[in-house]
C-alpha cells in the first residue's frame, strides 16, 4: 500500500495555485477547476431550490395554508422542481465529482475535450441566468412537468423563459455526456481494461449514454411546446386535432431516463465508498457493473408508468408495469452487493460511510415504494398523492443527495487538500438522516390516506402529519447548512491532507492532494484489479 502513496509535500505546485487571477479561473480548461466552478454554481441552485422547499413546507403547516395565495404556492413548487431537477440533481454528481475525479481515475491528464468541458459550464450558467430571470420576473406556475394544455394556453407564468433555460441546460448535459463517453473510451491508463475500471466510471458511462440519447428528445419536445405557447397554435392542441397525451409521452420518454441520470452516479459513488471503508474488495464487481448498464437500457422502456391514469390503453399499461418492476432487479443486485461487501470487512464509520449507509437505507425504502406505484391497481389509488412525492424524494433526496454528500466528503481531501472536521461530518450525516425521515415518512402516510399533491391547502385531519413533516424539514435544513459551514471552514483551517487519507485504492489517490495541474507526474500503469483491498480472502470463500 505504502508504495503507491506519492510525495505529499508539494502543495506549492497544485492546480489551485497554478494561476490565481479571476481570468485564470474563468478561462480555464483544467477539469479540476471546472469542477470547482460547477461546485459553486450548483451549490447556489441547491440553495435556491432549498429555500423554495422550505417555503412549501412553511405553507403546509396550517390546513388553510400559511401563504395566502394558491398562485404563489404553485409558483413555489414549480421553482423547487425545475431548479432541483435540472440545475441540481441531473448535473450534481457528474459535473462536480465526475469532472474532478474521472480523468484522475482514468490516469489521464484531462477529459478528451477540455474546451467543450468549459463550454458546458458556460451553457449551464447561461441556462441558470435564464432560469433566474424567469424566477425574478414572476416565476412559472405549471409544475416542473409542463403538462399541456395548462402550459400552452392557460398559464400566466413565464413559461418560455423557463423552457429556454431547460433547453440550454440540456445542451450542457449533452456536452458533458459526450465528453465522458469519449474520455472513457480513449483515455484509460495503460493496463486499465474495461473490467479494471472503478464502478464510478462505469456508472458515469451509463449515465452519459442516457444523457446523450434522452436529452435531445426533451429539447425537441420543449421546442414544440414553445412554438405552441408563442403562436397559440400547435401540435398538442386538441382543438385543431393535436394530442396533449403526445406531450406526456415525449416528456416522460426523456424524464424517466433522467431519473436514472440522477441516481446512477450516486450508485457509483457508493460503490467507491463502501469498499474503501470496509477495507474489502467490492462484492460481485461484474454484477454491479452490468446492473448499471441494464438500468440504463431499461430506463428507456418504462416511461408509460407515469401515465397509467392518463387514458392510455390497458395493455400498454400492463407492459409498462411489468417493465417497471424489472428495474427493481438490478437495483436490488446493487444493494445486496454493497451489503455483501460490508459483510466480513472491517467497517469504519467515518462521515462518507455514514452518508453511504444512509443512502442504502433510504434508497431501499424509496425503491421498494416505487414498486407500489409501479403496480397498476395500487397506482390508481396512490398517483398524484403525497405517496408519490415521498417515494421520489426518498430516491432523489434520501438517495441521490446523500450520495452527493458522501462523495463530496470522500473526495474533499483530494479536491482541496484539506481534511474536514470529522466529528462535525458525522453529526451532519446523522442530522440529515433523521431530518429527512421525519420530513418525508409522514408523507407516505398522507398519500396513503389520500392527500393530493400540489394543493396549497388541505383538510384539517391531515394537520398533525403535515406539521411533523414541516418540523422535519427544519432539521433537514440545519443538516444541509452544517456541511456548508464546516466544509468552508476547513478550506482555511482544516488539517492538510495526505495523498491517500482513507487508504483507498483507485488512481486518484496515487497523486498529491490537491493534484498538480497535469494530474500525474508519470502516467500511472494499472496492474492490480479494482478494489484491491486487504480483506479479500473472505470474499473468495463466499464466492
Amino acid at each position, binding site marked *: 500500500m505504502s508504495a503507491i502513496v506519492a510525495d505529499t509535500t508539494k502543495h506549492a505546485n497544485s492546480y489551485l495555485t497554478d494561476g490565481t487571477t479571476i481570468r485564470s479561473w474563468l478561462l480555464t480548461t483544467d477539469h479540476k477547476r471546472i469542477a470547482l466552478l460547477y461546485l459553486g454554481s450548483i451549490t447556489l441552485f441547491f440553495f435556491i431550490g432549498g429555500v423554495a422547499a422550505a417555503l412549501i413546507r412553511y405553507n403546509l403547516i396550517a390546513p388553510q395554508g400559511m401563504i395566502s395565495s394558491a398562485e404563489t404556492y404553485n409558483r413555489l413548487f414549480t421553482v423547487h422542481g425545475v431548479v432541483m431537477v435540472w440545475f441540481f440533481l441531473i448535473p450534481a454528481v457528474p459535473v462536480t465529482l465526475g469532472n474532478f475525479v474521472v480523468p484522475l481515475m482514468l490516469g489521464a491528464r484531462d477529459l478528451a475535450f477540455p474546451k467543450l468541458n468549459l463550454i458546458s459550464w458556460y451553457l449551464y450558467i447561461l441556462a441558470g441566468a435564464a432560469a433566474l430571470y424567469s424566477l425574478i420576473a414572476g416565476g412559472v406556475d405549471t409544475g416542473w412537468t409542463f403538462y399541456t394544455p395548462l402550459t400552452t394556453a392557460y398559464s400566466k407564468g413565464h413559461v418560455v423563459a423557463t423552457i429556454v433555460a431547460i433547453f440550454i441546460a440540456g445542451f450542457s448535459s449533452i456536452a458533458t455526456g459526450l465528453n465522458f463517453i*469519449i474520455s472513457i473510451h480513449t483515455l484509460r491508463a495503460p493496463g486499465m481494461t474495461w473490467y479494471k475500471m472503478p464502478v464510478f466510471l462505469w456508472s458515469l458511462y451509463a449515465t452519459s449514454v442516457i444523457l*446523450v440519447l434522452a436529452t*435531445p428528445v426533451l429539447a*425537441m419536445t420543449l*421546442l414544440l411546446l414553445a*412554438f405552441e405557447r408563442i403562436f397559440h397554435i400547435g401540435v398538442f392542441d386538441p382543438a385543431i386535432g393535436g*394530442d396533449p397525451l*403526445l406531450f406526456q409521452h415525449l416528456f416522460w420518454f426523456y424524464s424517466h431516463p433522467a431519473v436514472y441520470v440522477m441516481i446512477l452516479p450516486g450508485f457509483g459513488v457508493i460503490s467507491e465508498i463502501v469498499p474503501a471503508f470496509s477495507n474489502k474488495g467490492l462484492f460481485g464487481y461484474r454484477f454491479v457493473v452490468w446492473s448499471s448498464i441494464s438500468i440504463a437500457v431499461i430506463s428507456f422502456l418504462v416511461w408509460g408508468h407515469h401515465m397509467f391514469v392518463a387514458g392510455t390503453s390497458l395493455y400498454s399499461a400492463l407492459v409498462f408495469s411489468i417493465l417497471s418492476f424489472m428495474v427493481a432487479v438490478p437495483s436490488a443486485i446493487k444493494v445486496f452487493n454493497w451489503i455483501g461487501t460490508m459483510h466480513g470487512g472491517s467497517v469504519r464509520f467515518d462521515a462518507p460511510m455514514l452518508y453511504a449507509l444512509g443512502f442504502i437505507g433510504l434508497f431501499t425504502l424509496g425503491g421498494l415504494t416505487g414498486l407500489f406505484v409501479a403496480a397498476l391497481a395500487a397506482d390508481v389509488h396512490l398517483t398524484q398523492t403525497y405517496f408519490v412525492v415521498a417515494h421520489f424524494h426518498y430516491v432523489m433526496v434520501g438517495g441521490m443527495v446523500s450520495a452527493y454528500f458522501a462523495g463530496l466528503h470522500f473526495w474533499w481531501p483530494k479536491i482541496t487538500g484539506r481534511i474536514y472536521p470529522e466529528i462535525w461530518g458525522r453529526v451532519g450525516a446523522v442530522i440529515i438522516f433523521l431530518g429527512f425521515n421525519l420530513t418525508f415518512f409522514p408523507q407516505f402516510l398522507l398519500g396513503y390516506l389520500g392527500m393530493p399533491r400540489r394543493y396549497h391547502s388541505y383538510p384539517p385531519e391531515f394537520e398533525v402529519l403535515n406539521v411533523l413533516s414541516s418540523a422535519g424539514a427544519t432539521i433537514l435544513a440545519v443538516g444541509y447548512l452544517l456541511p456548508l459551514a464546516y466544509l468552508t471552514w476547513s478550506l482555511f483551517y482544516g488539517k492538510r491532507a495526505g495523498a491517500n487519507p482513507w487508504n483507498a485504492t483507485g488512481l486518484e489517490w496515487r497523486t498529491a492532494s490537491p493534484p498538480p495541474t497535469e494530474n500525474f507526474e508519470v502516467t500511472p500503469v494499472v496492474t492490480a484489479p479494482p478494489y484491491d483491498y486487504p480483506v479479500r480472502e473472505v470474499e473468495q470463500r463466499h464466492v
Partner: protein
Amino acid sequence: MWLFLATEMLFFGPLFLAWIYSRHWNQQGFDAGAQHTELIIGTVNTVVLVTSSLVYTVGVSFIEAGDSRRLIQCCVGAWLLGLVFLWLKFGVEWRHDFERHLFPGSDFAIDGPHGDGALLFFVFYFLGTAVHGLHMIVGLILVGWIIFRARRKEFSAGFYTPVSVVGLYWSFVDMVWIVLYPLIYLIGRGA
C-alpha cells in the same frame, strides 16, 4: 462524431414521430395541407442538397489522395449549392407561403372541414424546415471553416479527420431532409 449524430437523430426523432402520429389522426387535413406545398421547389432543392453532399464527398476522396486544391474546389461547390438550397427554401418558398397566408395564424388560408388539420400540418412544416435550416447554416459555417483551414494547407493525406467529420455532419443534414421531403411534399399529394 457518430455519438453526436445519435444525439441529433434523437433530436429530430420526436418531430417525425409527432408528425406521423398527428397525421394518422388528421389524415385528410394533412393531405389538404400537403397539396398547398410547392412540389417543384421542394424537388429541385432535394436534388441540389444531395448533389452538394456528393460534391463534398468527392472532396473528401481528393484529400485522401492528398490533393488539397481539389478539396477546396469541391468544398466551395458544396458550399454554394447549400446556399442555393437556403435561398430557394427561405427566400422563395417561404415568401410564397407567407403571401398565401399559409403561416399558422388567424388569417390562415385553408378553410373548410379539414382546415384544422391543414393548420397542424403547417405548424410541422414551418418548425421542421426552420430547424433543418438552422442545421444547414451551421453546416455552411463548418464547410467554410474547412475551406479556411484547407487554404492554410492544414490538411494532407495523413491528416484530414476534420474534413471527414464535417462530411458526416453535412450528409446527416441531407438525411434529415430526405425524411422531411416526402413528409412535406409527397405523402398526401396523391389524395
